[in-house]
């Protein structure tokens, strides 16, 4: 192959890409936070079985799981403000679209996690004189949170990747900034490769963090392991795909 790689051009413009990274992180972080809130509310409404409220929630989840994310983002960006007559900033409408998307998936994760708790554990708490709030806080959530981490992690990682779709609407996030560099220097191979690498670093650190969290929350008896060994274990568990 006679192609001459010019990664030096990418390095020279790394500050442009880093600006995009900042926006990508901001977009996905806001979407994760808002999405988590939406997911919790939706899951709680569905678990409570309030029919009047449950049906709209089921419809919401099905619509957002059943339509392409790009369509959702474009629709909320262009159509929603016209329909409801409220003008939204580009940033807000994109965060809202991503949050509604993640929220739909997260609500299912939360619902399954809470429903998966052994009914007997709940009975035992009531029999000892717990009230329902105490059962939720002390018995259900600690168990559910631990079990939900891998699935929540998937949604978070997806949300980072989804944010690249925002480039279509001119949001200056990583993908958009990459295209900007390409437009000036005509070096798509180098730029897209580096952009992909940066996405990978972001998603990978998210999984590392979640594995760390999962290990912290694991209730199995652990011996005191030195930090170095801990990292080795985490490293190893990344390749096993299941936390050890």
């Amino acid at each position, binding site marked *: 192959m006679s192609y001459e790689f010019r990664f030096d051009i990418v390095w020279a413009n790394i500050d442009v890409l880093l600006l995009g990274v900042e926006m990508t992180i901001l977009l996905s972080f806001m979407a994760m936070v808002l999405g988590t809130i939406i997911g919790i509310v939706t899951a709680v409404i569905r678990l409570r079985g309030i029919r009047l409220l449950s049906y709209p929630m089921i419809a919401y989840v099905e619509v957002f799981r059943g339509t392409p994310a790009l369509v959702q983002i474009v629709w909320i960006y262009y159509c929603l403000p016209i329909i409801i007559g409220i003008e939204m900033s580009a940033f807000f409408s994109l965060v809202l679209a991503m949050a509604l998307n993640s929220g739909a998936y997260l609500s299912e994760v939360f619902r399954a996690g809470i429903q998966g708790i*052994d009914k*007997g*554990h709940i*009975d*035992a*708490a*009531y*029999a*000892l*004189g*717990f*009230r*329902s709030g*105490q059962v939720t806080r*002390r*018995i259900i959530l*600690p*168990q559910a949170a*631990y079990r939900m981490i891998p699935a929540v992690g998937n949604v978070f990682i997806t949300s980072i990747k989804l944010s690249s779709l925002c480039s279509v609407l001119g949001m200056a996030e990583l993908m958009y900034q990459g295209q900007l560099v390409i437009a000036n220097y005509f070096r798509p191979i180098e730029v897209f490769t580096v952009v992909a690498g940066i996405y990978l670093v972001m998603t990978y650190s998210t999984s590392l963090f979640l594995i760390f969290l999962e290990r912290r929350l694991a*209730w*199995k*008896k652990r011996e005191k392991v030195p930090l170095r060994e801990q990292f080795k274990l985490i490293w190893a568990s990344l390749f096993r795909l299941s936390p050890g």
Partner: protein
Amino acid sequence: MTTAIQSERTPAIGIVDLHKSFGKLEVLKGITCDIWPGDVVCMIGSSGSGKSTLLRCINYLEPPTAGQVYVHGTPMGRVKAGDGTLRDADQGTLAKQRMRIGFVFQHFNLWPHKTALGNVAEALVVVKGMRRDEATERGTEALRRVDLLDKQDDYPSTLSGGQQQRVAIARMLAMEPDVLLFDEPTSALDPELVGEVIDVMQGLAAEGNTMVVATHELGFARETANRMVFLDDGVIAEEAPTETFFESPRQERTQSFLKRMLKL
């Protein structure tokens, strides 16, 4: 909350014409029975006869469809309204009433995210509002009573079935309940582990605790209970002092049940 009138003549648990249906299926068809302080009552009957449901109705894990349970004269799960009629109690009242009734489950139902000691101490902190160190002290004491002090830092998943059930008993004892209910506490255990749980329960009976035990362990029942209740198809088919019950059961269905059980 209504105050209980406690006297010699108030049963620890009074069950009056209790009915329970799940949809169209009527499981309890009118149970009336008194458990007196100090009684150890063993309840037997084939599976599906309503033993578990009856126990769960006593502490309101299943609200009865009709009828009433009284604990030391206080209506369980209900409070007297201004006009003297009973209405459903609020959550706080019910929780306080349940605190006085210990419950041991067939499948132990220990919380997997807590150690043995954590399981025992949790309710002391959450329900009784004890300080963590007080609860730990009381919890350790309860574990000593079931001879599991050495396992206090172990998680349930690392304990044998018999050990888990003993932790569950300690968890109940730490709350110092007045009445102890056992829902087939040895049915989920390997045969060789049944003995250790039975030993603990016999110890509790010997201390004079009021106990109601649903069980298939006829040997245990015969040795420990002072009264037997035979449940069949949602009604009490026969109720008698243990000796009479085993020596000369009156009802034909009791006789055939005992015959079947003893043949096993």
